[in-house]
Each structure stands twice: as C-alpha cells, then as structure tokens.
C-alpha cells in the first residue's frame, strides 16, 4: 500500500460516555494534515486514535466509524500490518529487541520486502534530525535513550513502514524535536494526529479536536489567529531547549541567553 492511494480517512461520529452524540458531522483527514487532540486525562483522547488505528465500525465503546477513501476498508488493509496505512507510536511503545540499530532496521526492511539499499542509512539520518543525541548504526537498541528510541520509531514509520497516517500518543515527553517532526511529516505529505498536552504541538497543528467525557466536544480551526502566540511559544520552547543542552553540557547558567 503506497501512501498515494489513501486520499482521505473519514471519521463518522459516535457518542460520549453518557451516550450523547458527538458534535460533528464528519472529520476528514487528508495527506499533510496535522491534527492535535486535546482534553483532560480520561476525556477520550487515546480512545479516539485507537478507533482510527483499528478502523472502528461502530464496534468500539465510542460507536465511531472510520472509512478509507469513503468506504469501509478491506480486511487485509486493517489486519496485515505491512499493508496497514497507519503507524501508532505511544508512550508505552518500546523497542525490545536486543540488537544494533542497523540490524533492527534491516529486520524490518526484510519483513517489508523492500529492495532500496540506502533506506537504512536514510532512516538513521532522519532519526538524527529529530534528536539531539546522535544515533549511530552500531548503537544497541536497548541502550538508546527515550528520545532516541522515539526518533528512530518515527523515522522508521515514515520511511520503512511508509505509513501515510501516523498517530503519536503523548510523545512530547520523550524529548524529540517536535517542530522538525511536524516539518518532515508535512514535507513528505504524511498526515499526523497528536494526542498531546503540549502547547507547542497543539499550536503547530492545523486543527484541534477538543475532547470531553469520551466524545469530541468541538473542533477548532485556528486559521492563523494563533500565529502570534505560536511564535512566542516556539521561542520559549527553543529557549528551554538551549538551557537544557547547556545544563547537559555541564554549564552553570549564569548568563541569561534569554529571550531567543
């Protein structure tokens, strides 16, 4: 399944925990869309992306329906991970394999029957754009930091899985360059849905779904009205990143270096 055959993924409404219908007609996701899902803990954010991940057909607790190109997707599409157009990466997702990064990716490339010889170095190179701590082909997977692992999984989902839709569940805690991830996903015409508590990720998305009591309460389209705040949050974020790097490098932060 190549990414270009997915024109859109449509979510039809279900109901919240109290059985009230959700407040939207349909949510359509097209290549390059970025969506963030926000709301308090327990409001149904993760259930929303789980519905997408399994292509719910009114058979989950929320009663939602998920269509591909307007139709109920074929079984193969959902059941065979190598045909499935979706990659889900959560906070719990781990690479358990005790092998080197290179071997690990080679194993995935083999399972996918991909013939491109350069795809492994390309994936590592892309992962290194998402993390400040460089990943080498010979690093052991089990020795990678949380941020390195998450970066590698995102790069793997983009290049080797070639998934047109990537679902990221609260990955901001892992210390990856979120802005760069969003840029790359847009460049490569991937759609992404973030479940997030992070202001920057929320503000960088084109759409925000606000969850309440297990249902979508509303959908916000900022359409440029948040640009000023987004830029400010971006600067604060960059400032914090730099402080973090300096602390890591063993500096005493006596000089301001703020604002960016």
């Amino acid at each position, binding site marked *: 399944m190549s990414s270009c055959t997915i024109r859109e993924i449509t979510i039809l409404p279900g109901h919240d925990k109290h059985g009230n219908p959700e407040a939207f007609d349909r949510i359509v996701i097209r290549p390059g869309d970025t969506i963030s899902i926000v709301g308090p803990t327990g409001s149904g954010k993760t259930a929303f992306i*789980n519905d997408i991940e399994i292509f719910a057909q009114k058979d989950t607790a929320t009663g939602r329906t998920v269509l591909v190109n307007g139709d109920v997707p074929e079984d193969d599409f959902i059941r065979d*991970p190598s045909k499935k157009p979706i990659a889900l990466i959560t906070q719990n997702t781990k690479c358990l394999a005790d092998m080197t990064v290179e071997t690990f*990716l080679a194993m*995935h490339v083999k399972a996918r029957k991909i013939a491109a010889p350069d795809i492994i170095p390309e994936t590592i190179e892309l992962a290194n754009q998402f993390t400040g701590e460089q990943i080498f082909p010979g690093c052991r997977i089990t020795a990678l930091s949380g941020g390195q692992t998450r970066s590698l999984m995102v790069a793997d*989902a983009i290049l080797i*899985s070639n998934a047109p839709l990537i679902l990221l569940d609260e990955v901001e805690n892992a210390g990856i360059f979120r802005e760069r991830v969003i840029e790359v996903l847009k460049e490569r015409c991937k759609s992404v849905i973030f479940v997030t508590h992070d202001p920057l990720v929320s503000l960088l998305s084109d759409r925000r779904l606000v969850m309440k009591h297990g249902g979508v309460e509303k959908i916000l389209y900022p359409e440029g009205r948040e640009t000023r705040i987004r830029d400010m949050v971006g600067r604060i974020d960059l400032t914090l990143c730099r402080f973090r790097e300096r602390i890591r490098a063993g500096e005493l932060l006596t000089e301001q270096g703020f604002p960016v």
Partner: protein
Amino acid sequence: MKLIIIAGPPSAGKTAVTRQIIRHFSKTKKIAFLKIDVVRAFEDEELRQEFSIPTKKIYSGDLCPDHTGIMVLQDALSWAEEEESDIFIVESAGLCLRCSPYVTQSLGIVVLSAVSGMNSPLKMGPMISLADVAVITKTDLVSQSEKEVFREKTKEVAPAIDIVETNAVQGTGLRYLMRTIDELPEISDPKSISLRGVPPLGVCTICVGKRETGWQNHFGVIRKLDHADDLFRGD
C-alpha cells in the same frame, strides 16, 4: 455447542483473551469454562464471579497438564452439555510450548505475547502450527517493526494461520476473533473428537514423580545407553 481450546505460554494473556470472548458473547450465549493448570489457578473463580457462568478447574499435579486435558475432555464436554452451554472454553496451562492440546471439531487459539521476543514463535512449533488462530497480545507495547517481524515469524511456523493482533486488556482488534467464533460450526459428534497432532506429552514414570535413575526402575517408554532405540516396558 461450540468448543474453543486456548493455549499459549504463561503470561501471554490467555485469560485476558478468554475474558474478552466471554464479555462479547455472554449477553447472547451460555458459556462454560474449564481451566487446566498444574498447581494453582484462579481463573475459574474470577470468571465465575465476574460473569456468573459455570466454571471448573482441574489440577494436573505430577501429570503433564495437556495429558490431563486430553484425559478429562470427554467428561468435561458432558459437563458443559449438562450446563446447556452454547460455547465451551478450555484454557490450557501453557507450559512446555511443544505441546498442542487442539482437537478436531473445535477452534484452536494460540495466544502469543508480542513482548516475548521476536524469535519466540519459532521456538514453539505445534502449539502454533496446529492452531487455527494466533492472537498476538500486548502489541501496544512494541514498535511497529517488531510487530511486523513477529507476525512474519508466526507465519513462518504456520503459513495459513489467522493472525489477530490485540491489546487484550482493552480488547482492541478482537472483532476478527469474535467473527471467527460466530462462524465456528458446532460440535457434530463429541465422541469422535480427537487430537489434531501427536503431542510430545512424555508421560512416563519420571514425569509422575518416580526419582530412581536407570531404565531398570522405570516403565513406559524407556531407553538404554547402547544398541536400542525407544523401547516400551509394560507394568
């Protein structure tokens, strides 16, 4: 009555899968449950309390649990029939991995955990190859690539097996399993139910607790050091 046999290594999530099956069908079907285990098991009490269904357990003690399962199956089928069950679920202990408790006229489900290591399907053999469905649990915990590789390895052991990936605690993705159970034919002739393969049960005097060494002290299948293959020595 439909018969479902569930096998899989310890902690793979057999009971979590069982629980989802019961939850899904309990409104429309009568379900009975048998757990076979070695020394201790709690699943029967938990499931009886949670779903108010008839449950039973049997401890195999010194006997191989799959051997025990085969011995008691006809009795167990009669019990489940007396309880007027529509679906009878037998959950095995899941020990030596080489064993394969699946029988004819049933749905054989092997439950495998995605976190058990990507080569683990290759180590199991008949427990996978004679099953109808492989339910791979805990897929929410591993990376996409490991999920895909685990699937490939399972297919290597059993090319035609139906694979269902799930987070069994949440029950995600199990609709395919439920559909298969829906379509499962009823038992047609209980007396003719037989094992699908010959499991290496190794039921011998050592297995049942006799500690003496040397073939002279044992019965059943024995072996001498020189000049002989496996011999049978009667009691």
